[in-house]
C-alpha cells in the first residue's frame, strides 16, 4: 500500500504548480480529486492554509487587516510597506476587514504570521496577567 502523503507535501506540490503559472482551476480540480480518493476532504481547509503559507514564503502574501473602523488608503499603504519589510514579499494583496470587537488598533494576519495590536487583545493579556498575580 502506498504511503499517504503528508498535508505539507501536497501543499508544496500545489504551491509549486501555482507559482509555475498553472491555472488555479486546474490545480484545484487535481487537489479535489486527491482529497476525495484519499478520504481527506475534511483536511481541505488545512491544505489551503498550508498552500498559502508555502506561497507566502516565496513572496506572494495574502494579508488581512482587521480594525474597528475602515482604514484610509494612506494607512493601508503604510501597512503594505510594513508587511513587505517584514516578510520580503514582492506581491502583497491586502484586505481590510472591519470588526468592532477589536475596539481599536489593528491586527495584521498573514499566512502563519500575525501582528495583533488591538485593544481587545491587550485587555485579554492584561486580564491574564492579573489572574496570574
Amino acid at each position, binding site marked *: 500500500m502506498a504511503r499517504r502523503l503528508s498535508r505539507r507535501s501536497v501543499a508544496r506540490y500545489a504551491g509549486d504548480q501555482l507559482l509555475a503559472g498553472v491555472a488555479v482551476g486546474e490545480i484545484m480540480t487535481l487537489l479535489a480529486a486527491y482529497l476525495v480518493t484519499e478520504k481527506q476532504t475534511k483536511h481541505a481547509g488545512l491544505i489551503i492554509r498550508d498552500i498559502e503559507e508555502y506561497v507566502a514564503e516565496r513572496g506572494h502574501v495574502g494579508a488581512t487587516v482587521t480594525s474597528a473602523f475602515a482604514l484610509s488608503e494612506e494607512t493601508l499603504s503604510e501597512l503594505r510597506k510594513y508587511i513587505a519589510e517584514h516578510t520580503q514579499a514582492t506581491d502583497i494583496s491586502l484586505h481590510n476587514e472591519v470588526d468592532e470587537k477589536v475596539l481599536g488598533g489593528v491586527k495584521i494576519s498573514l499566512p502563519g504570521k500575525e501582528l495583533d495590536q488591538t485593544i481587545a487583545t491587550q485587555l485579554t493579556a492584561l486580564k*491574564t496577567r492579573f489572574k496570574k498575580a
Partner: protein
Amino acid sequence: MTELSKELRSAIERLETGKELDEVGVILRVGDGVAWIHGLRKAGYSEVLQIETPEGIVEAFALNLLEDEIGAVLLGSDSAVKAGQTVRLKGEVLTVPVGPELLGRVVDALGRPIDGGAPIKTKTRGAVEREAIGVMGRKSVHEPLMTGIAAIDAMFPIGRGQRELIIGDRQTGKTALTIDTMINQAKQNTGVINVYVAIGQKRSKVARLVERLKQEGVLEQTIIVATSPADPASLLYIAPYAATAMGEYFRDNSGHALMIYDDLTKHAVAYRQMSLLLRRPPGREAYPGDVFYLHSRLLERSAKLSDELGGGSLTALPIIETQAGDISAYIPTNVISITDGQIFLETDLFYQGIRPAISAGLSVSRVGGAAQTSAVKSVSGNLKLGLSQFRELASFAQFGSDLDASTKSQIDRGQRLTELLKQPQYQPLSVWEQVASIMAITAGYFDTVAPAKIKDAQAALLTRLSTDHKKDMAELDKGAKPSEEIQKTIETTALAVAKGFKD
C-alpha cells in the same frame, strides 16, 4: 485604590508592544489537557505556546513536533480552549522564578505562590529544562550531607552532590526520612537549602509537612514545590524540573541545596499519561520509550561543582514507591541504575518496630564513603556487615537451637545495635551524639545492658556527656576523628551509665 491603579498602569506599560510578526497557528482539536495545533513550523521542542481564549491566555508547551501538526500539553485548564483558537509562539522555553525570595514559600510547578502569601518577585528566572553540568565542571563528592539519622550517616553516608534513592513500599517512612534530613540541616546549621517537590501528593499531606517544618524552624530555608492529584498531568511532569531550576540557583551561586523528589513513581505515571494522550507508542508497563531519559536527565543535574565554578552542590534524594517490595519493577530499576545508591525501607522491619526500617542488606551508598565524616567513619567500620550478618543469624536463633559463643555474642551485639539505630521521628542526631552512641555498642561498653534498655541507656549517656563534657563533645561535633582523650571520656561515661542499666 491608588496602589491598584499604579499596579494597573505599570502592567499596561509592561505589556508587549513589540512590532515583530508573531508565528501563529490554530488549534485543531483539544482534549484531556492535550492540544493539537496546525502551523507553528518554527516551534522548538519544549517551547512555550500561548493560546488566546476568551478567558485569557492559556500557556502550553510543545512536546510532539510532527510534519503536519504539533502536540502540545496545556499548563492550565482546558475548559476554555477550543478548536479554531489562535496559538502564538512565545519564542522561549519554559522558565520559573528562582532566587532567595522563594525561601519559606510554597509554590506550584510554575513558581506561583499557593500559600496565600504575597506575590513572589524574583530578580531572575531559570530554565525548567537545562542541560546538566559537564565533566570538567564537576568535582568528586567529598563533603558530607548529614541526615541526622544514625543508621544512614553511619552505614550509607550521603555526600553533597550525590543522588541517593529512597525506595520502599507505601507507609514505610520514606517521606519521614527526608523530613528528618531537612530538619537536620536547620538544627546543625549546615547552610543547605531544602527544596521539597511534592509530585501529585495530597494537599493535606503538604499542609501537614509545611506545619511541621514551621514548628521545627526549617521552613525559612526551604522551598516547597507542590502539585496535587487535582492538577493537570503537565504540572506534575514539570514540577521536579522547575524545582531543580530553583535548587540550581543556589548551587550556581556557591551554595548547597538538597532536592527531595516525592515521588518519581507518580512523576513517571504523569508522564505516561501525557505520552499516551500524545499517541506515543507504549512500551513496558505502558511507559513510553524515553522514560529512562525522563529521570536520568533530571538527576544528572545534581552535582558537586568544581572550585572554578564556585564549589556549590545539588544533592538529590529521589523517592520511589514500590509495590509489595518489588524493586525489580521498571521504574525502580531505572532509578536505581541512575542514582549513586539506594536506601531500601522494608515493610516487615517497619511493623517489627524497627524505624527507620532500613534494610542493611539491600541499601548501599556508592560514593558517600569518601564524604563520610571522619568521626563517624572511625566508629562505624563494619557496622553494615555486622548488622546484615546479625539479621541472617537472627533467623536461625528463633529456632532455639544451641549456638556457639561467638554466634551468640554476634546476635547479642546485633540486637543492641538494632535497638540503638531505632530513632524517633523529628529527632535527628548530631555528629557527636552519633559517634558516642555507636561507640558505646561497637566497643562493647553497653554489653551488659539488656537490648530493651538500650535506648534509655543511650539517652542517659548523651545527657551525661552533654552536661559533663560539653567542650569535648563540641570538639567531636566538628567531625574530626575523636582523640584518645575523647574516646577515653566516652568509654568511662558509657561504662558508668551501663552499670545503672545492668540486667
